[in-house]
Structure formats: C-alpha cells, structure tokens
C-alpha cells in the first residue's frame, strides 16, 4: 500500500486531526469570531469524518501503516463515536457559558481530540496504539470534565476523574507490558496465539494477572464494579454536553475496544478447546456484570440530581453490556455489540432531553422538572419513549437488545445472571418512572420561556424516532453480526 493509499484509508483520522488544529487556531485568526463558529467547524469535521467512515464500512479490511487496523468492527464503532460526539457538540453549541465564551473553543478541541483517541483505540490490534488511543480519550475526558473551572463541582470532578483514570490506566499499562512479555509481540493476534500455547501448557497465573490488570483499565472506562466510584461524582460535576460525551462516546469506545481485546486475545484459546481453563474468566465477568447491574440500578433509585441519576444508570447499563462479554463467544459478543449500538442511540436522546429540560427549568433536580412535559409535549413524549428503550419495553429497539442478551445468557448456562438482569430491569423501570412522572404533573410555577433550543429538540425527537424505527431489529443485528465476524477469531 503506497503512502497515498494509506492516507485515503486514514481519511477520517486525518480530517479530525487537521480539524482539531483548525478549531484551535480559529479564534486566533478571526478575532471577531462568534462563539458558535468553532463549534460549527468541529461539527463540519465530524460530519466529514463520518462520511468517510461510512464509505470505509464497505471497503473491507486492511492493515494500514503498520499499526492501524481497518475492519468492520472498528469502523462501525468509530462511526458510532463520531455521531455521538456530534450530538454532544450540538448540545455544547446550544449551551451558554456564563462569562463570555471562555472555554468554548477548548471544549470543541478537546471533544475532537477525544474522538481521535477513540478512533485509534478502536482501530488497532497493536497494544501500543491501543494504549495511546485509550490515554488520548482519557486525557480529553479529564480536561472536559473540568472545563467549567468556575464551578466548584466541575474542578472536583476533574480531579477525581484524573486520579482514578491515571491509576487505572497505570494498572492497564502494567498489564500490557506483561502481555508483551508473554507474547513477545505487541500485536494482540500474535499474543492470543502465544497465550493459547501458554494456557495449554498449564500456566494459568501468567494469563490471569494481565487479564485482571486489563480489567482494571477497561473497568474504569466502562465504570463497572469495583471501578465505578468515580462515575456518579464525575457525571454530576460535568456539564450536560460533556456528560453526553462521557456516557456515550467514551463509553461506547471503551466497550467496543474491550470486545476487540478479548476477541483477539482469548478467542484463540477458546478455539483451541481451552474452554475449561477459561471458565473462571467467564465467572469473574459474570459476577462483575451482576454486581454492576444491581448496584447501578439500586443506587439510581434514590437519586434526586438528574446528572447523578444518569451516572448511576450508565453504570447499570455497562453491567448489561458485560453480560454479553461474559459469554466470551461469538453470540454473546454479537448481543453485546447490538446492545451497545442501541444503548448509544437511546442515551444520546435521553441526555439531550435532560439538557433541554434542565435548561428550561433552570435546575438539575428532579423536582424542578414538574410540568415540563405538558409545556413541551414533543420532548416529553420522546423522553418517555427513550426511557422505555432504556428499560427494554416494546415497541422500542431496547426491547430486542435486552431480550437478545438475556436469551444468549440463558443459552450460555448463566441462568442466575438472567434472573439478576430481570430484577435490575424492574429497578430500571422504577427509576425511569420516577424521572418521567414529574414531567406530566401540574407545574407549580410559571417559567419564563427562553430560546426554543430547536436543534436539541430535533435531536431528542430524532433519537426517539430512531429507537422506535429500530424495533425492526434486523439492521442492528446485521451490523452486530458483521462487526463480530470481522474480528474473525471465532
């Protein structure tokens, strides 16, 4: 592949990298630039990158420039990340920064840098590249959380994210170095083959230790137990647009990369008839999934702050995703991928609705939302539909996504996990009702009607429509199947 060809393959990454630099320079060059202009540049770049990603979905597979891997799985989730980052950017542009536009350009730049990190995190078999992407996404998130430094919560959340993030990524780096020692290569596929050999000769500890260390790294990014402590506080402290990025783009990227790592690393062993040796892994993951689901939904029950509620809810959803991962096989991974796509779309809508409602009511407390569903029926009804998808009720895509996960878990012999998931779904229903109920109650106070925030309304209604349209689940299933097939270790 010539250098020019490689550039064509890496067009989305190139657009983002250049675009981020343009955003940074925009305010310097055009002194009179309006606050929204850098956001518009960012949005354009994300749209361009998404266009090329969409093209790339059909291009097949290639190793580009040695370390970058282009395949269906990577490109699909890169597209998901780019679109969810665009949603976060729309919220950011609709938001107002109290003292002038301070921090606007930085937010846009950091969002784009984070997306670029996610691209490299998702598109590689190379552990070096993977770690760089992981750190790039993480660094952007730490800074984004603290970007509204004039708010006390924000600075505190930034420090929390940084400390937990640095600790977990340090642990993960240690795990990666052990894997390098184990496999003699940084390429996960080669490490996978070597690992299968090591496992077959009965050395389990050599694989178990890096596995646990990697779990710590991804555990932070996905906020599953026992690495979830940061999530509620950080979600609470960050602004709603940043929360959207955290809950969707960052989480989806981490989750999809986790799938790739497990597929490349352990699947070779599963193929080689090492199911029994790997059984403890399944149990560990299943136990984490159960604990995460239960704790997340239970804690979400009594939250009064909208951001905190979304934080715990996002923890719980990570647990559901882990059900599919814990099955450590093709069908489980397919279900997990499908769930991830549906979760992303649902969560984009819910966070956008939360943004709209909190800007209308002027507060993040649940009780301040009273009556908003009556005055803004489009957003109110859409939010109800999106919450139904989060719970997993028909007629929404969330129903099939959850159903598929539970069926696969049942088939995989994890019946108890299905029970826990069912219980957790009931809890989800309860907190979803707690969120939706005040919307349609009589309002006590009259609110001044501000700007109509139509892009945000459109985002909420669009996400709700998408969730309903995908009740016809075949396209999602096809995408998930193709993406897992492209990991090709099954």
């Amino acid at each position, binding site marked *: 592949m010539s250098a020019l060809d490689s550039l064509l393959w890496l067009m989305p990454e190139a657009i983002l990298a250049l675009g981020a630099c343009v955003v940074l320079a925009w305010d310097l060059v055009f002194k009179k630039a309006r606050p929204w202009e850098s956001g518009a540049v960012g949005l354009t770049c994300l749209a361009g990158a998404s266009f090329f990603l969409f093209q790339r979905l059909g291009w097949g597979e290639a190793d580009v*420039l040695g*370390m970058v891997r282009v395949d269906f799985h990577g490109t699909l989730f890169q597209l998901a990340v780019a679109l969810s980052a665009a949603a976060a950017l729309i919220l950011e542009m609709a938001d107002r920064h109290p003292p002038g536009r*301070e921090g606007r350009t*930085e937010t846009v730049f950091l969002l784009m*840098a984070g997306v670029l990190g996610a691209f490299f995190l998702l598109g590689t078999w190379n552990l070096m590249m993977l770690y*760089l992407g992981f750190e790039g996404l993480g660094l*952007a998130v730490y*800074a984004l959380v603290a970007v509204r430094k004039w708010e006390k919560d924000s600075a505190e959340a930034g420090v929390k994210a940084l400390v937990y993030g640095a600790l977990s990524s340090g642990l993960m780096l240690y795990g990666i170095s052990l894997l390098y020692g184990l496999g003699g290569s940084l390429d996960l596929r080669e490490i996978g083959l070597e690992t299968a050999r090591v496992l077959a000769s009965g050395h389990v500890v050599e694989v178990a230790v890096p596995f646990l260390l990697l779990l710590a790294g991804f555990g932070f990014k996905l906020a599953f137990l026992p690495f979830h402590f940061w999530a509620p506080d950080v979600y609470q402290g960050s602004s709603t647009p940043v929360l959207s990025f955290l809950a969707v783009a960052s989480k989806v990227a981490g989750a999809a990369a986790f799938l790739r790592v497990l597929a490349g690393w352990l699947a070779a062993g599963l193929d080689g008839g090492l199911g029994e040796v790997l059984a403890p892994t399944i149990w560990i993951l299943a136990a984490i999934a159960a604990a995460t689901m239960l704790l997340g939904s239970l804690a979400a029950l009594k939250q009064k702050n909208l951001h905190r509620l979304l934080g715990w809810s996002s923890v719980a959803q990570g647990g559901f995703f882990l059900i599919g991962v814990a099955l450590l096989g093709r069908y489980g991974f397919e279900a997990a991928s499908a769930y991830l796509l549906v979760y992303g779309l649902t969560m984009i809508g819910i966070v956008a609705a939360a943004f709209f409602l909190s800007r209308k009511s002027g507060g993040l407390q649940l009780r301040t939302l009273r009556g908003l569903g009556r005055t803004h029926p489009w957003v109110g009804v859409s939010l109800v539909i999106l919450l139904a998808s989060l719970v997993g009720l028909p007629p929404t895509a969330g129903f099939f996504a959850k159903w598929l996960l539970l069926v696969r878990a049942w088939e995989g012999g994890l019946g108890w996990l299905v029970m826990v998931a069912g219980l957790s779904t009931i809890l989800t229903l309860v907190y979803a009702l707690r969120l939706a109920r005040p919307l349609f109650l009589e309002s006590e106070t009259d609110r001044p009607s501000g700007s109509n925030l139509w892009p945000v309304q459109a985002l909420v209604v669009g996400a709700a429509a998408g969730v309903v349209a995908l009740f016809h689940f075949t396209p999602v299933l096809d995408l998930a199947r193709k993406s897992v097939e492209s990991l090709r270790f099954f």
Partner: protein
Amino acid sequence: MTGEVLAFSLFSAMAVGGAGLALFHRSAIHSAFALLASFLGVAGLYLNLGADFLAVTQVLLYAGGILVLYLFGLMLVPPEGEAPRPGRRALALVLAAAPVAIFLIAFLARSSWGDPSRLPEPEGTVRGIGLALLTPDGWLVPFEYASILLLAALVGAVHLARRSAPKDDSP
C-alpha cells in the same frame, strides 16, 4: 580497557557522590544541584554501556526536566521556619535503605555474568530508534498521534491554569 574503567570510576563517583551530597547537604538548593551531578553521572554510565539514547533521555528528562521542576518548586516555595537538621534524618534514611542495598549487592554478587570479552561491541541506538519512529510501516502513526495527545493535554492544562477572562467579555 583502562579508558573504560577510568570513565566508569569517574561516572560512578559522580553518581554516588552526587546522591550522597544531595542527601546530606544542609541547603535544599545545593542538594538539588548535587542531584544534577548524580543524574549526569548516571547518564555517563549509560553512555559507557553504549546506550546512547538512554543517556540523552536521562539528561533531557531528569536533568533538564524533573530537576528544573524541583528547582522551581524550591525557589517559589521558600522553606519556612527552622530547617530540620538534615544529618540525623538522612542517617535514619540510609539505615532504613541499607537492607535493600545489602540484598541487591548480595543478589548481584551471586549471579554469574559470563565472559565480558564475548559481548558484542555496543552500537548506537539513536539511529535505529529514529528510523523506527519515522518509517511509515513502523511507529509513525503512534509517534504522530502522541503529539496530538500531548497537544490536547497542553490545551487542557493551559485552560485550567489560566486566569479567568474579565467579565466584560461576555456578550
């Protein structure tokens, strides 16, 4: 051979002597400069072993970066009140670290190191590393991406550290 031994003795004296001076000297600033000598000594030892890249990195990172950070810290935050008598505390530290040192020396003495004359001549590593970093099929993408990662970290740090803009900037 004698040149090598001479260089080794010189650099190790620098490294160990600098570290000792840093521990026992009364003034924190002088200690920091003694540490500089120690870092340079270690860099010299690396150079002596043929690890030229490691030596340059040692000078750049430790002597050029971390030590300057120490000095800034020391000069910006002057020590308050009576300085603790360094002698006794340093002695306690040395005593606490002694078992580790004894263990390491015993461990090193037990290992067999083979015949030094059979070792290959060290070759420079800088050229190889430079080529690997900039070859398209090598480490080019991570290398270039790392610069954007650092740029993001820099933007975040500058934004957080910068004083807030005046209020009249608001629309």
